[in-house]
C-alpha cells in the first residue's frame, strides 16, 4: 500500500507578528484524505499557524511546503509568495472571521470562488449542503451565523481545493450546528481525498471527526496523538491545556 500524498509539511516553523514570535518550532503534516485537529487554549498560536501557511503572515524561520508551493522566500530578506499564489495552488482557508462579503449574495460568493468555467461546482456543493441551498440567494450580511459559516465552507469547497484549513468552525455557533458541520467536513475529506487542518476550541467534537490531533501551548506542541486515543484520555488534554507537564 502506497503512503498517501503529503499535502502540507511544516518543519520547525517560527511565526508571529512583526517582532513578536508566537509559534516556536512547530512540526506538522497533513496527508491527503486526513483530518488533523490543531487544539490548544487561546493564544497558543493556532490561528497564527494557519495564517502563516496561507502566506498572510511572513515566515520567521523554518520551512513550509504546501502543495506545490514552498513558502521560503527565494531571496533572503524578501517576502516569499503571496496569499493569492497559495490559494491558487489549491488551499482553501476559512478564516476566523469567515472572510465573507456582506454585500454579496451567497450565490455570488460561490460564483466568484469557483474556477473559471467550472459551472458544475456550485451545484455540486449546494447539493451536498441543502440547508445552505435554501438561503443561498440572500446577501451574506442577512444570513444567520450558522448559515454564514456554511457559506464560508461552501465557498472554500467550490474551488475544488486539495487542502482545507478551517479556523474555529464552532465560533459563535450552537453546538447542534457544529455537530452537523464537522461530520460534513469529515465526509468530504474521505470522498474527495482532501486534507483538512482543523483549528478548534470544541475539543470533543473535533476529536470525534479527526484522525490525529496536536495540542499547542505557548507556541509549542505539547501533546500529539491519534484522535481516538486522545478522545479516551481527556485528562491528558486538560492537563496540556493548563500547561502542566505530562
Amino acid at each position, binding site marked *: 500500500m502506497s503512503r498517501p500524498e503529503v499535502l502540507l509539511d511544516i518543519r520547525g516553523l517560527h511565526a508571529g507578528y512583526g517582532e513578536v514570535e508566537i509559534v516556536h518550532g512547530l512540526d506538522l503534516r497533513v496527508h491527503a484524505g486526513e483530518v488533523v485537529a490543531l487544539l490548544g487554549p487561546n493564544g497558543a498560536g493556532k490561528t497564527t499557524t494557519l495564517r502563516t501557511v496561507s502566506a498572510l503572515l511572513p515566515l520567521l524561520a523554518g520551512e513550509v511546503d504546501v502543495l506545490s508551493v514552498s513558502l521560503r522566500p527565494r531571496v533572503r530578506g524578501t517576502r516569499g509568495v*503571496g496569499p*493569492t499564489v497559495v490559494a491558487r495552488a489549491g488551499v482553501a482557508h476559512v*478564516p476566523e472571521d469567515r472572510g465573507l462579503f456582506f454585500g454579496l449574495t451567497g450565490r455570488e460568493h460561490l460564483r466568484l470562488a469557483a474556477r473559471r468555467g467550472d459551472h458544475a461546482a456550485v451545484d455540486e456543493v449546494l447539493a451536498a449542503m441543502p440547508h445552505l441551498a435554501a438561503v443561498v440567494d440572500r446577501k451574506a450580511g442577512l444570513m444567520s451565523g450558522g448559515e454564514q459559516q456554511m457559506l464560508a465552507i461552501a465557498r472554500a469547497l467550490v474551488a475544488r481545493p486539495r487542502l482545507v484549513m478551517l479556523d474555529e468552525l464552532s465560533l459563535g455557533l450552537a453546538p447542534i450546528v457544529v455537530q452537523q458541520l464537522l461530520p460534513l467536513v469529515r465526509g468530504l475529506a474521505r470522498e474527495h481525498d482532501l486534507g483538512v487542518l482543523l483549528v478548534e476550541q470544541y475539543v470533543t467534537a473535533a476529536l470525534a471527526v479527526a484522525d490525529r490531533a496536536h495540542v499547542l501551548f505557548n507556541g509549542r506542541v505539547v501533546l500529539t496523538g491519534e484522535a481516538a486515543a486522545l478522545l479516551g484520555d481527556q485528562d491528558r488534554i486538560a492537563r496540556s491545556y493548563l500547561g502542566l507537564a505530562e
Partner: protein
Amino acid sequence: MGMYVAYAYFSMRNFDVRSTELGGDLILPILGLPARVHVIDRPTVLTALTVAILVAAALGAAVYGLVFRPLRHAPPLARVVASLGVFLYLQSVMALRVGQSGGGAVSLRLDSLLPTDAVYIGSARVPQYAFVLLGLAIVLTFVLSLVFRLTRFGLATRAGAEHETGLMLMGISPSRLGFANWIIATVTAGLAIILFAGVSGRLDPLDTSLLIVPALAAALIGGLSSFGATLASAVVISMAAGALGTFQARADWTGDWLPRGGLAAALPVIVIIVAITWRGPKLPMRESLVEGRPPAAPVPYRPVPVALVLGALALMALFTLEDLWRLAIVVSMIAAIVGLSSVVLTGYLGQISLAQYAFTGLAAFSTAKLALEGVPFPWAPLLAIALTVVVGVLVGIPALRVRGMTLAVATLGAAVAIEQLVFASPELNGLSGVPRPRLLGIDLGFLGQGRDSFRPEFGVLVLTALLVCALGVANLRRSSTGLRWLAVRSNERAAAASGIDVRAAKLGAFALSSGLAGVAGALLAYELPALSPQQFIVVGGLAVLALCYLGGIAAISGAVVAGLLASGGVLTQLQGGTTGSTSATQFAVSGALLVVVVIFAPDGLAALAARGARRLQRKQT
C-alpha cells in the same frame, strides 16, 4: 476603497488628459522630462482620442501603483491628502506645460463630431449635441453597471471593497483589481473631460478641476455605489443649475449684492449636502470604521516656556529685521493660526474639512466690511469672528451624519457655496482702505510710510494672537475635552458607547476651529492692502489642509511648520522672496513631496524633526 471612490477621486485630476489632443503632441506630466513629445503627424479626432485614452489608462495605473496602492490600508485622511498632492502636482505641471506652449487655455472643438443644431423644448433652446451627450452617458452608465453586476471582475471588485483578505484567500489579487479599476476610472473621467471641453470649447485647468464638486456630489447621492443613481442625480443637478441661472438672470428681487451665477453654482451643492446629511447615520456603520493609525497627536512639550522663548525670538526678529522679513514673519504667523484651526478639527477630532480657508476669507471680508462701515477696532474683528463661528457650526452640521471622504466633499461644497454666494459678490470686490486698528491710542496698523513700510506694531498684535491661540490649543490637548475629541477620532462608536457626546464634540470642534480661522481672517483684513475674492478661492482650502498635513496635522508644532512653509511666508523669503513664474514649479514639487510625506511620514515634518532630535540626544548621552 472601492472602485467608486476611485472613480470619484479621479474625475478630479484627470483634466490633464485633455491636452493630449493638441496638434499631435503629447504633453508629459512629469517634471524634468521634455514638455512635449510628438506622437502623430496629422491627428484626426479618432487617433487623438485613442492616444488620450491610452494616456489616461497609463496615468490611472501610475497613480494607483505609486500612490494609492501603498496607501490602501491608510486612514481616509491620508488618502484625501494624497489625492490633494496628486491634484496639486498634475494641475501645476499642466498649467506650466500648457503655459509654456502658448496660451493658458487651449481651445478644442469636437464640433465636427457632434450636431450643433438647436431643438426647442417649449421656449427653451437645447442644442442637439446635449441629447447625444446624454445618450452617451446613459449607454456608458448601462455598460458599466452591467459589467459590475454580472462579471466575475465586477463581483470581485464589490467583494474587495469589503474584505480584502477574504479576496486574497480566494486567490484573487486585490492589487490587480485596483489597477484595473483605476484604469477604468481614469479613462471614463478622461472621456468626460474631453467631451466637456469639446462642447464648451475651452480648457482651463481650474475650470475643469472644479467640475469635481458637482461630479462628486452626484456620486455621493448614488451612495458611491450606484451608477444609475449617480447618472440620474448628475442630470438633475446640471439641469437645476441651468434653470437657476436663467431664473436669477430674470428675477429682480435677488438684489445687486448676489453674484451673477451664484445661485446656480451654490444651490444644488447645498441641496446635496443637506440630502446626504439627512440620510447619513448618526453613528458610523461597522464597515466604515477607521482603519489604520491616525497621525500622532503628541501632548505639547512644556507649552508656556516654549511659547515664551519662541515669542521672544519672534519679537526680536520683528524689531530688528528688514521690512520684507517682517512681512514674511507676519504672513507665516497668520498662516500658523489657520493651521491651528486644522489641527483642532482634523488633527484632534479627525474631521476632514476643506472649508477652513473659506472661513478665513469670510472673517476677512466681514472684518473689512464692518470696519469700513465704521465699527471700531476690537469690535469689528470680534463681530466678524462671531459670524464665522456661526457659519462654521452650520457647515459642521453635516459632520454629525457623514464622515471621512464624504465629509471632505461636503465641506468642499460648503466652501464653493461660500465662494459663489459671498466672495463673488460685486459689493465685496476690491475692498481697500480698511481703517487702521487702534487700541488705547496705539496705532497697530501694518502699512507705514517710506522705509518703514511694514510696521512691527502690527506684528506684535499678530504674535499675541498666535500665542494666545497656540496656548489655548495646547491647553485643550491636555484637558479632558481634548481626550474626548481624540476618542471620537479613533472610534466614534466606542466613544459614544462610553458616554462621550459625539455631537457636542463635533460642533464644538467646528466652532473652535472656525473661530481660529476667523482670527486669522480678521488679521488678514488688516494685513492685506486690498481684499479680493481671488485670494480666497476654494483651492486655497485644499492647500491649507495639505500644508498642515505636511507639517503634522495633529500637533501644534505642525501648524507652526505649516505657517513657515506657507506661500509668501518665511520659507519663501529664505528662497529669495520672489513668487512669480517659479511658483507653479514649487506647487508641483510640493504636491509630489506631499504624496511622499503621506506615504513615508504620516505624522508630518514636525514629528520627523522631533524624532531626529531625540535620536541625536540619545547618541550624545
